[in-house]
């Protein structure tokens, strides 16, 4: 091969790199065989507690749901796993049709007209919703209202993403039990959008009826960040007049995997589709008139619009969207509702028992699903240490980290994967701390 190139040795091919900087010494550990590599990783994995070893009652944006075995088997097919963005549609119909089915299912869940292929996660999907709102008003409006019960990480990402855009972000300092109507009071004719969560970070299902009318009366947009698994049961946000519905799709059967890769989903009205970021697949036909699918509306995207593009997203979470599509196909219309109902019944069962323990109080001014807030007689960290080291239970999320008003308040999560025996163990353990 070197002879064909006309090079004396491989080093010749690197002659354009300044010689004094070439071939630096790397301080990496030496190579391992495949067997040793796996052994090394097993050792690291052994150092973790995890949901396979302990009962888990922690949610707060990452949920332990059961995933049918076919999901992981199918996404590991090499033709899905090792392809890339379907730029050549003739040899990518598998990916393209699956994305089209995903978009259709997101529309079904949210009630919206159009959806995209994915965002990095729910938090970045929310940030892109804010940027889309900013584009929509072309800089004429500068205020964003964020509910304090949007996921704290999602709110954080909105701040990070928009730091160069000169927006003012309000609403987050309101108390965590604020009603949506009070948030609507902050919406004025300088506001581009109001974003609320459904269910919210505290597990509660705010009444969104009438909210859109108040937001729209000021000419602003309503963004609803939803848990798609909860949408298997709850009224879809489109029915409340939402303009954008986005969120974290991890609850649709993706592994916890210490926080990623997850799946941002994004849906909007047809009238706003040209402002939406991300890949979009559309139906078309080939030269013989056979139905097929292609990436469409590319003129919105970075590779065409370059410095006029409002989003730079390129690689997305394709395989995770495929996993969620297979999950939704497998559970189907009744199965998804059944999972959501199991979460409803089990979380209420747990809340009823815990709320009856002396010293503990369930704070649930509104209906909740899957997660609920418990006021505790001791610091949450102390309770969690007891649960883990004495009872092999991974306890809830310490809300005091994000809300000073919720010091000593724990967010507990109960899904279909928590058996009655696990819940009873949790209640028994907590009763010792009363």
């Amino acid at each position: 091969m070197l002879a064909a190139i006309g090079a004396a040795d491989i080093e010749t091919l690197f002659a354009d790199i300044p010689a004094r900087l070439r071939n630096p010494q790397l301080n990496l550990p030496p190579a391992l065989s495949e067997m040793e590599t796996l052994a090394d990783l097993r050792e690291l994995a052994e150092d973790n507690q995890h949901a396979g070893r302990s009962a888990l009652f922690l949610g707060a944006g990452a949920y332990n749901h059961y995933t049918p075995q076919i999901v992981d088997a199918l996404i590991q097919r090499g033709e899905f796993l090792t392809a890339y963005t379907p730029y050549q549609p003739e040899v990518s119909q598998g990916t393209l049709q699956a994305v089209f089915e995903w978009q259709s299912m997101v529309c079904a869940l949210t009630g919206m007209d159009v959806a995209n292929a994915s965002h990095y996660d729910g938090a970045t999907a929310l940030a892109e919703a804010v940027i889309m709102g900013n584009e929509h008003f072309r800089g004429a409006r500068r205020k964003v209202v964020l509910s304090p019960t949007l996921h704290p990480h999602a709110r954080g990402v909105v701040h990070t993403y928009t730091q160069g855009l000169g927006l003012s972000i309000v609403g987050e300092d309101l108390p965590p039990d604020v009603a949506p109507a009070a948030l609507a009071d902050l919406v004025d004719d300088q506001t581009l959008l109001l974003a609320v969560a459904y269910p919210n970070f505290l597990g509660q299902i705010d009444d969104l009826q009438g909210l859109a009318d108040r937001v729209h009366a000021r000419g602003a947009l309503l963004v609803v960040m939803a848990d798609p698994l909860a949408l298997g049961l709850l009224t879809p946000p489109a029915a409340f007049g939402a303009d954008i519905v986005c969120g974290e799709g991890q609850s649709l059967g993706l592994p916890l995997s210490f926080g990623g890769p997850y799946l941002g989903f994004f849906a909007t009205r047809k009238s706003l589709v040209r402002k939406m970021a991300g890949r979009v697949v559309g139906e078309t036909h080939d030269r013989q008139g056979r139905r097929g699918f292609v990436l469409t509306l590319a003129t919105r995207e970075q590779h065409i619009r370059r410095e006029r593009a409002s989003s730079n997203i390129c690689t997305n979470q394709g395989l995770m969207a495929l996993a969620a599509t297979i999950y939704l196909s497998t559970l189907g219309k009744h199965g998804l509702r059944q999972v959501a109902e199991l979460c409803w019944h089990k979380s209420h069962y747990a809340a009823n028992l815990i709320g009856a323990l002396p010293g503990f109080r369930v704070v649930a001014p509104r209906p909740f699903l899957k997660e609920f807030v418990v006021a505790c007689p001791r610091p949450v960290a102390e309770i969690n240490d007891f649960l883990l080291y004495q009872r092999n239970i991974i306890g809830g999320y310490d809300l005091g980290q994000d809300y000073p008003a919720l010091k000593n308040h724990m967010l507990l999560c109960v899904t279909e994967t928590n058996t009655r025996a696990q819940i009873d163990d949790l209640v028994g353990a907590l009763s010792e701390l009363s």
Partner: protein
Amino acid sequence: MLEPLIYDLSRPGRQGVTLPACDVPPTPLPDGLARTTLDLPEVDQLTVVRHFTRLSQLNMGIDTTMYPLGSCTMKYNPRVNETAARLPGLAAAHPLQDPETVQGSLALMFALQEWLADIGGFAGVSLQPAAGAQGELTGVLMMRAYHLDRGDTKRTKMLIPNSAHGTNPATANMAGLEVVEIPSDPRGNVDLEALKTLCDDTVVGLMITNPNTLGLFEEHVEEVVAAVHACGGLVYGDGANMNAIVGKVRPGDLGFDVLHYNLHKTFSTPHGGGGPGSGPVGVSARLTDFLPGPLVARVQDQGETQPPHFSLVTPPKSIGRMKAFWGNFGVLVRAYAYIRANGPDGLRGNSEYAVLNANYLRAKLEDVYKLPYDRVCKHEFVVEGVWADAPGVHALDIAKRLVDYGFHAPTNYFPLIVHEALMIEPTETETRETLDRFVHALRTIAEEAHTQPQLLKDAPHTAPLSRLDEIAAAKQLVLCCRPVALSA
């Protein structure tokens, strides 16, 4: 129709999995909370399996075909990495567990931070960005924050060569900066003189890809960096093309202030039909305080007897978090496994073979395909897919015809500065036999372009579908297969 839509396979009452019965006393649902309809398909499990198996068979992937998609580094994705990412301790750990209980995950992330810093020649690394483009936004926001922190508020411009990937200018726009395009010189480098005249105290910095999107190493890279630094600007490196230079040169040693790595390119993690990726950023010492938080830190060295201990910390002037939790962890596991299996010499060797393979293809094709920049390339090269004596044949036709010879198409129509560009990146994992078959295919296609051009214009002939009508797709805008009435 190749395969029906999953919705068309739906029959009332079917379901692909059984769920446990409710083992607690039920709590009634309040009125008005529940939806009345849910338009998801109802399908039995075997039908789901066949549907998605058949769909997969309509795809080309690295596992089936050489996939020389330039700028994307479509190398083999080792299967052992898939096993590693699915180990229960890694796959079933919750991101918000007490750090004390996830020391394995944190140790892995800490090691990867250190290794990437070493490979890039940087003082700090954040694993948070989810892809290359998000790494770019991370880096550009840090550059902006750095200037503002020094009270230097005049800087609003980002310099970007005209060969850059679209994500670079789009990123600068997202950060609220003005993009100033820099021309390229006749050898494919940044035009140094043009750059120098644009460097002043309004410049945030330069975004540069090296090797660039032509597959060429920047011949004056040190002068380019010096010019930007001289005006107080910072240099951002788009590391999409790191596969050419791992172990050969460290961007930090070249003076880059920040760079994103693409773990889904250089470090072999699968592209998944579009993602997930991972785009960690490395930074020089003056930017470490601005890294997105949190990072993994080693705490209180307890000496030789105690195992090291890790925690999550946020740098003092952090730009904030880029995504929920800590990064695309499952992708990090795969990249960790790849670096661990290859070691320093293996990684260097991979870059050497990636460059050897690309130059071999270049040498074997340059007499039939025009090379606009005819010099030693790095891991990829760009040819013009057009001939004066074969009018009507375009790069796209060549790309589609390659499919008939059993290859995925190269990247086409990028970079924009090459007419009818075909960007070819073989990677190190293709054998010489495969490369020779690829050469044969491209040489045959060049002949066909002159003798039977219609063969190219009608290609592909062997794919599941012939060419698709993209204009019709954009016009009719059918993006969803169900009628949705609610938000109208």
